[in-house]
Each structure stands twice: as structure tokens, then as C-alpha cells.
């Protein structure tokens, strides 16, 4: 009779076995390798790296395999690994102006110095299912012919507006503190923009997408233009104290988005354009753009705009953006709550008993009448 709360240990053991079997699926089919995931599911790998906050394609691919494709679970696996890694130091700020570009577009100007560069994008596919892929056909296209020559670094489009002073520039204000490190310090309000951006970079893509979408539908006062979206590789440099200069330690792929937003101006500042900023690992324009929308929306306070919506409230957005936190807390409802539920049962019975009970016969008569 007491079985209900016994045998937890054995049940857990069997659960691991089942999980491993389910993950493997039909053993008649070859097992998926980590390098296949890394090469052929690169957008999933990018998302896991961004939200897992580790740039390591192999580990991200491993996490995706282990999580059977559940990306939020994979992100959690990667985060739990990341937390154990030693911290060697902080790299120099990356220079996205010197990015080796694969794609770069601006929706604000028809032509821009360096040109618009479409790159590989799903944007202009017609979303027709490609049944050739289903038939295991190798449909890899030939590498497009064209200039592969190293390109000159392209300046950011937004710096062009700067010449007229039409857009605020993203320069650290004098005396600004060093950026914090959210993985080493708890979030504390009021919160600096650098910390907000860290939070948004780690934030769940779906959450940012929904909040960003809400800002477009009137739950905030932003009027955005995609000033520039660029994707490509940047070099990572680390200052080595013993050497006295910075050493390039590798390249990473990034997607950057700069949104241009109107700003009506305030007592001291003339009307101007302001920026919202998004930056993510790998190729993910959806997340970078959503992040830029939400970043701008959260700047309402510092720009002296009226705060009328949750999308402008840093506490609301930043406390609920992390999917590792959210997924854990939502799913903790699976854990036993016998004791709390028992307490509520006891209260409910007592409250109901306190009400004058309706005599049973009366209830029966009424039911007969109703019938």
C-alpha cells in the first residue's frame, strides 16, 4: 500500500534506460554522428551556442544529440557544462566593422558603400518542400561562381548617418563602468545597458521574438527600420599580459543587427534617431532582430519615454527571458507537492464546513423537480 512513495531509485534507473533507447530510435538505421549535426544542422547548433553562452560547435552538436533534438534541453546541458569551466580572462571587444562578410543588408538605404550582399538566406525561397531531399538525393549545388576575393572591411551603415548627427552614437559614456558579467554576478536593478544586452543575448529566441513582435503591434512606442544586418566571421583577440600585446586566438561567426528607431527628443535633446542592438553567435537574423527591438524598447527609461507597457519594463523582460530558468521553474510543477496540496485540502474542507450545510433531503427534492 505504501508503494506509491517507494522505489524511486529503481524507477529512475529504468527511466535512464528508456531514455537512451528512445533517443537511439530504430537501430536498423545508422546512428547520427555529432559531426553530422554540426555540419548539417548548423542553425540549431548556432542557437544552442548562443543561448548556452559557449562558442563550441562540437559541444553544442553533442548536446543536441544527447537531448534528442530538444534545443532548450541542449542549451541547459551546455550551460551546466559551461558553469564548470575556468575563466581565463576577457577578450578584447570584437570589431564587427572588420567582419569578413557572408551577408549584409540594409533596409534603410537602397545602396550603401560596399553594396548590399544577399548571401545565403531562406528569405527568398518559396517554402516548397523539396522532395529530392526526402529521396536521399544529393542535391548539393556547385559552389556559386563569383568574386571570392577578400573584401575590404565595410563600415557600418549607421556611421553614415553620424556625419549629420542624425543618430546617436554607441560610444561608452565617460566614466562608464566595465561591463558586468551576468554569469558571475546576479542581475541587480537598475541595470546597465551592457548587462541588459548580455541578458538578451542569452535569452530564449521565442521569448524575444514574441516580445519584439509585441513592440511592433503597439505595446511600446518604437518605430524601427533595419539599419543593417550583417553576418560573417570576426577575429577574437586576447591580451596576453606576459607578451604585452593582443593575440588572435580564433574566429567566430556572428550575426549583428542595428535597428534605427525614431526618438521624439526631450527637453535637452533634439529629435534624433536612436539604436537598438542585437548580436548572436552563428547565423540567426530572427534572434538578432528581435533582440534589437527589445533592446530599444527597454531603453525607454534612459531616454525619458513614457513607460506604458511590460515590453519596456526591464524587470518584466529580463527576469523572464532565460529559458533554462523558465523551463526549470515551469516544469518543477512535476515534482511532488503532496504536502502543500494536503494543506490546501485541509483549508478548503474547513472553509466549506464553516458554511451552513444545505440539508441533504432538500437537495434531492430540488433535483427531482429539475428532472
Amino acid at each position: 500500500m505504501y508503494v506509491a512513495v517507494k522505489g524511486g531509485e529503481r524507477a529512475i534507473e529504468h527511466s535512464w534506460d528508456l531514455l537512451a533507447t528512445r533517443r537511439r530510435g530504430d537501430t536498423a538505421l545508422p546512428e547520427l554522428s555529432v559531426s553530422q549535426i554540426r555540419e548539417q544542422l548548423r542553425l540549431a547548433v548556432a542557437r544552442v551556442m548562443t543561448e548556452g553562452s559557449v562558442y563550441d560547435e562540437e559541444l553544442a552538436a553533442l548536446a543536441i544529440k544527447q537531448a534528442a533534438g530538444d534545443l532548450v534541453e541542449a542549451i541547459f546541458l551546455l550551460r551546466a557544462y559551461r558553469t564548470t569551466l575556468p575563466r581565463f580572462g576577457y577578450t578584447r571587444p570584437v570589431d564587427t566593422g572588420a567582419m569578413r562578410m557572408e551577408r549584409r543588408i540594409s533596409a534603410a538605404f537602397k545602396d550603401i558603400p560596399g553594396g548590399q550582399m544577399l548571401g545565403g538566406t531562406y528569405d527568398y525561397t518559396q517554402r516548397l518542400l523539396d522532395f529530392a531531399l526526402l529521396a536521399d538525393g544529393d542535391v548539393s549545388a556547385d559552389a556559386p561562381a563569383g568574386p571570392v576575393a577578400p573584401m575590404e572591411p565595410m563600415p557600418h551603415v549607421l556611421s553614415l548617418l553620424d556625419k549629420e548627427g542624425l543618430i546617436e552614437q554607441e560610444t561608452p559614456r565617460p566614466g562608464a563602468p566595465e561591463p558586468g558579467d551576468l554569469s558571475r554576478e546576479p542581475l541587480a536593478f537598475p541595470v546597465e545597458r551592457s548587462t541588459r544586452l548580455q541578458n538578451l543575448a542569452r535569452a530564449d529566441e521565442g521569448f524575444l521574438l514574441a516580445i519584439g513582435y509585441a513592440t511592433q503591434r503597439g505595446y511600446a512606442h518604437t518605430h524601427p527600420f533595419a539599419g543593417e544586418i550583417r553576418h560573417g566571421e570576426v577575429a577574437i583577440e586576447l591580451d596576453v599580459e606576459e607578451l604585452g600585446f593582443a593575440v588572435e586566438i580564433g574566429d567566430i561567426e556572428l550575426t549583428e543587427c542595428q535597428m534605427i528607431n525614431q526618438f521624439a527628443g526631450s527637453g535637452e535633446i533634439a529629435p534624433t534617431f536612436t539604436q537598438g542592438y542585437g548580436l548572436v553567435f552563428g547565423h540567426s537574423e530572427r534572434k538578432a532582430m528581435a533582440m534589437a527591438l527589445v533592446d530599444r524598447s527597454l531603453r525607454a527609461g534612459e531616454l525619458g519615454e513614457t513607460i506604458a507597457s511590460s515590453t519596456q519594463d526591464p524587470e518584466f523582460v529580463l527576469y523572464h527571458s532565460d529559458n533554462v530558468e523558465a523551463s526549470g521553474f515551469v516544469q518543477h510543477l512535476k515534482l511532488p507537492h503532496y504536502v502543500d496540496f494536503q494543506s490546501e485540502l485541509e483549508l478548503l474542507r474547513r472553509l466549506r464546513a464553516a458554511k451552513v450545510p444545505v440539508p441533504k433531503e432538500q437537495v434531492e427534492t430540488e433535483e427531482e423537480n429539475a428532472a
Partner: protein
Amino acid sequence: MNARAAETSMTEGYNFAYLDEQTKRMIRRALLKAVAVPGHQVPFASREMPLPYGWGTGGLQVTSAIIGRADTLKVIDQGSDETTNAVNIRRFFARTTGVATTTHTADATIVQTRHRIPEHPLTERQIIVYQVPMPEPLFRLEPRVTECRKLHALADYGLINVKYYEDIVQHGSIATTYDYPVLVNDRYLTSPSPIPKFDNPKMHMNPALQLFGAGRERRIYAIPPYTKVKSLDFEDHPFTVQHWDHECALCASTESFLDEMIVDDAGTRMFVCSDSDYCHGRRGDGEEA
């Protein structure tokens, strides 16, 4: 290695008790501050743990920061050592520390708990670590952390008194049954974690050190030994705890917190102790639950 072997072997390449020493030091600093200001929530840089947020990461980090090789650990969830979450956390520490574990409250030096305080009284040589989902006792009345911090700084607890007054007007009694807020050391309003209010009186002047960890919310707080802990109430509506018209069906206790079980399709109920170790002890059988 199969899934089972991978999940049960001693961990390699990880520090004692999983967290690195720097992190443990950071947590210990927060703990010291928490003990110095009883009931006050101290922010700390909570780490991602290999357990989901909301499943005890705060308690896990506190235990990890204080556990030593000579410790004996007991882990309970809903009062029982055998619920899956308790089993999982106990296994985590067994794997990462190799310390002795026990189900007997009296033998433990550290008790990590979710939702209960053991029925067996704790002693000065014991530490109880609570897993806390929402450390802020006012969050249902004021969701903004910044506002709540002000209210605590000013000891302005009018909001919750009004809420309880309204409960009494509406229901005839305060309608909070678990996570029933307490005033610690006559100063800070504190969440006791979602223990039933039945357990609140055990916190008052308890000889054991009581530590609280909220991982997702990144807060640590503490109640030092022999500290005054008062459950909120009114002079004309004093605080009371739950009581049952039944006794435990297994050990016949009339003093413990009872869980209700539905034992057949006809909805027959059975009441048994929520604290499995206490229940076994009273029945005098040596069998592990």
C-alpha cells in the same frame, strides 16, 4: 558505457561537491552575511547546476558550499527520503563527494529539504538547508523586486497585513496554508519556503542553523540557531497549525503531518506520516523506506 553506468559512476574531472572552490567561497561569503542579518535576502551569483532551476539548485549550491568529507547527508522531499527528487539529489552528492548519506534525521549533520522540516527535533550540531522557489514573501502582492527591497528596508509590511485582514473578513481565517511568512528576529519578513504552516513553529528558537538557497532567484538567507521566528498573525486571530481528525494508519502518530492517499477506485482515503523516517522510527522496524 550504458546509460545507467554513466549516471551512477563517481564523477571524474569535477571538484569535490561539483562547484569549484572560488564559487564555494563566493557562496560562503553570502552565507556569512545572511547569518549576520537573519532573514535578509542576500543576492549571490547563482550558477547553472546540472539540475533544472526550480528543482533545488539553491539548496544544492548551499549544501555544496558547506559540505565536508566528515559530513553525513540526509535529503528529503515532502518529508520523504524516497521521492524521486530526493533520491536524485542524494545521489548527486554521493557521486560528487563520496560522503556518507543517511535517512535517519538524528544521524545527519546536514539535512537538505524541500517542503518539510523533519518531525524529529534538530540539534546544535545539525544544519538544515531549505530549497526555496520564491524567496520574496511579498511577491504575490508586489512582483517588482526593486519595490520589495524598499519595503524590506523600511520594514513596511502593511501590504501583507491588509491581505491577511481581508482574508479574515472574507473567510474567517487567514487563507495561507504553506509558505506562510514569518518575521525573523523581529525585523525581516521572510519566506519559510513552501513548508506547511504546520512546520513554522519548529523554526522558532531552533538549535540548528537554518540556511535557505534560491538558485533561480539568486538569493540566500539564513536563520541562525536560537533565533526568534514569529508567524504573522493578529492578537484576536492567533496563528494556528493544521490538525487532523485521523492518526497515522501505519504508526498511529497523532502529532505528525499526515499525507492523504487515495487507495482504491471508490476513493477510500488513508492517512500516513509525511516524514517517512519518523514513521519508520515509531514502528521500530529497521527496514529502509
